[in-house]
């Protein structure tokens, strides 16, 4: 039964597994791969945020990268001005969270749903892209930070120990920080989804009017989900700015927005593990393809995606989950793989 196997056993096991991976990976993987892995981990946090609001909240957001980008820009601009990274880190969560809340208020309370919502979020993202891209003139400066237009902001200072700007985060440190963040977000979201709040969110996705007729203010629940998702995406953006040490309007681009969606679908909507898995898989493939000259990278990736939809329509995680459950051969592994909440 659904309620059971989402039980705590699976969650504890997943946490332990995550921690083990986090500690073990740097020992077995070479430094370049570590840097690459770090970027996957960061993007997985972004994927999780969309996994929440789309997979569970049913909110079709085509602009998740907007919050990601706002988080990154907020961090970059603030840290260049402040030096110390503590407040910038908080801002990178709060600013996109607030932005999501405002946008959500503007839209949910006007009862905008479905593709209409999707296209507005996409449009907002494109506006940010255009606007940020048009700030290359020298007059566009916030405090000490020039916005840089299409070129973006280079040389973004890394996170540091609170109050000690000279104790900056190393590459390894960033990996651990990102890993812990990913794990914390994952566990936090699983707990949230088990609560009454989570149940209602899913119910609203299934049938908004019925949920309202049962006394739940769908607008509020959606707004809250959206804001949480926005804040998480912003945090990922901050980590990303740390990882690449730069930030440019590309984060708001169409390609970036679409990628997040692709990760979530490939992994499996309606799960939390799915977005993480999808994100790792696709990014790994894309990097590998970029390093070879034989075939056009787009050609191969496109073929893979199409083949994937036709052969693994539910997404990776639900497919594996179903297979494990059907085989019934390892009752301890199966609960690790979440069941998808959408048929």
């Amino acid at each position, binding site marked *: 039964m659904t309620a059971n196997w989402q039980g705590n056993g699976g969650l504890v096991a997943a946490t332990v597994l995550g921690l083990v991976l986090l500690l073990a990976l740097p020992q077995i993987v070479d430094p370049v791969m570590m840097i690459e892995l770090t970027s996957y981990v960061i993007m997985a946090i972004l994927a999780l945020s969309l996994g929440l609001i789309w997979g569970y909240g049913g909110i079709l957001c085509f602009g998740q990268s907007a919050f990601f980008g706002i988080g990154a820009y907020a961090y970059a601009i603030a840290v260049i001005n402040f030096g110390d990274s503590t407040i910038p880190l908080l801002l990178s969560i709060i600013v996109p969270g607030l932005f999501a809340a405002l946008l959500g208020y503007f839209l949910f309370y006007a009862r905008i749903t479905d593709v209409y919502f999707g296209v507005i979020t996409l449009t907002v993202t494109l506006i940010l892209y255009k606007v940020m*891209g048009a700030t290359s003139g020298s007059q566009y400066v916030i405090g000490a930070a020039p916005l840089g237009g*299409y*070129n973006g902001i*280079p040389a973004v200072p890394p996170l540091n120990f609170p109050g000690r700007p000279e104790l900056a985060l190393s590459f390894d440190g960033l990996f651990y920080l990102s890993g812990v963040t990913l794990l914390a977000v994952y566990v936090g979201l699983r707990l949230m989804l088990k609560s009454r709040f989570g149940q209602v969110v899913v119910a609203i996705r299934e049938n908004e009017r019925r949920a309202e007729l049962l006394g739940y203010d769908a607008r509020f629940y959606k707004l809250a989900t959206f804001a949480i998702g926005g804040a998480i995406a912003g945090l990922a953006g901050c980590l990303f700015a740390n*990882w690449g040490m730069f930030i440019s309007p590309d984060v708001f681009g169409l390609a970036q927005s679409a990628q997040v969606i692709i990760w979530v679908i490939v992994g499996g909507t309606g799960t939390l593990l799915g977005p993480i898995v999808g994100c790792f898989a696709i990014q790994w493939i894309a990097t590998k393809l970029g390093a070879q*000259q034989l075939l056009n990278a787009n050609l191969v990736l496109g073929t893979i995606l199409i083949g994937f939809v036709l052969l693994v329509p539910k997404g990776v995680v639900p497919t594996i989950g179903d297979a494990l459950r059907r085989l019934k051969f390892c009752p301890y592994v199966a609960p690790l793989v979440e069941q998808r909440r959408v048929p």
Partner: protein
Amino acid sequence: QEDTIKIASLLDLSGGLDAAGKPMQDAITFAVEEINQAGGLLGKQISLITYDTQTDMRLYPQYSQQAALKDKVSAVFGGITSASREVMRPVLRRLNTLYFYNTQYEGGVCDRNIFCTGITPAQKQSKHVPYAMNKWGKKIYTLAADYNYGQITAAWTRKYCTENGGQIVGEDFFPLDVTNFGSTIQKIQEAKPDFLYLVLVGGAHQSFYRQWAAAGMNKQIPMASTTMTIGGEQMVLSPEETNGILLCFNYFEALETPANKAFLERFHKRFGADYPYVTELAMATYQSVYLWAEGVKRAGTAERMPVIEALESGISLDLPSGKFSIDPQTHHCVMDINIGQIQDRKINILESFSQQQPLDTSGVCDLKKNPDDNSMYVIKV
């Protein structure tokens, strides 16, 4: 202990910038092959590791790290836009890997770990703008790509225009993906300039030339461009659309020097007689490999610091584009400048200026005095 010397190229071979990137890749491949055929460097062969950065911002730092940490190359060549350079530069500096940036750009980079072989505004526009004004008149309308390069180039244009008693009657900036220039063409007609000064970049902006010609304006108002031919555009557009455009570069295929003639012969033997055009960026890339190789030879090693010091000792080579030397103070290059004009897909050279200094950058940057400088100066025009 290694039996080859490794270098890496990080260029956009796919995605929006690959029209510029592919000829550069051909050029670096060719340079490496030539050196290897001539016996290599310090008795070793050079091996070239190629990364396709796919016009994707995220791949520049990633591949830079990979080249530095995993491949342990002795130098990285590449990056096309200023944006990509500014992403690669801090990474390579931190990982102690020498970096060659080979695109014409807005000037101002000041970092001992990088050498910039591209032409900068003080070298180019100081000649280009007055030349065009003499030819056509004093009223200029500038159309520029909307990013650092375009903005700063437009600012330099303004400077040289006013210094020569001219007037900017209009200035528009276009993001790289703009393809519709209809309104702009009306605006230009309203402003009635003597000529257009174009800093348009990339494939999308090519449509300007088509729309301009379709409106019949190519017969009315002449054009000068800083970027035309960089991706071989003149081979794609029709002659009517490009005839008469005034250019200014370090290199044109039409250069009459023996070095260039020999180069073109070898190059076409390797890549076929119908190879469209050796672009400015390709030539800068090709020449940068020779500069680096010379540095390695003089240093007797491919290690970073000795090579930098050798290059700073004032290397000067006779290359296809003429005499080409490194300016130790700025790590930019001193080179010949040529004015050319397109006629039926060929470029005729109209005038040459020898050995221009990178005056813009040297105004802000002195690596001899401040070897630890690590900035990208925005030069006050």
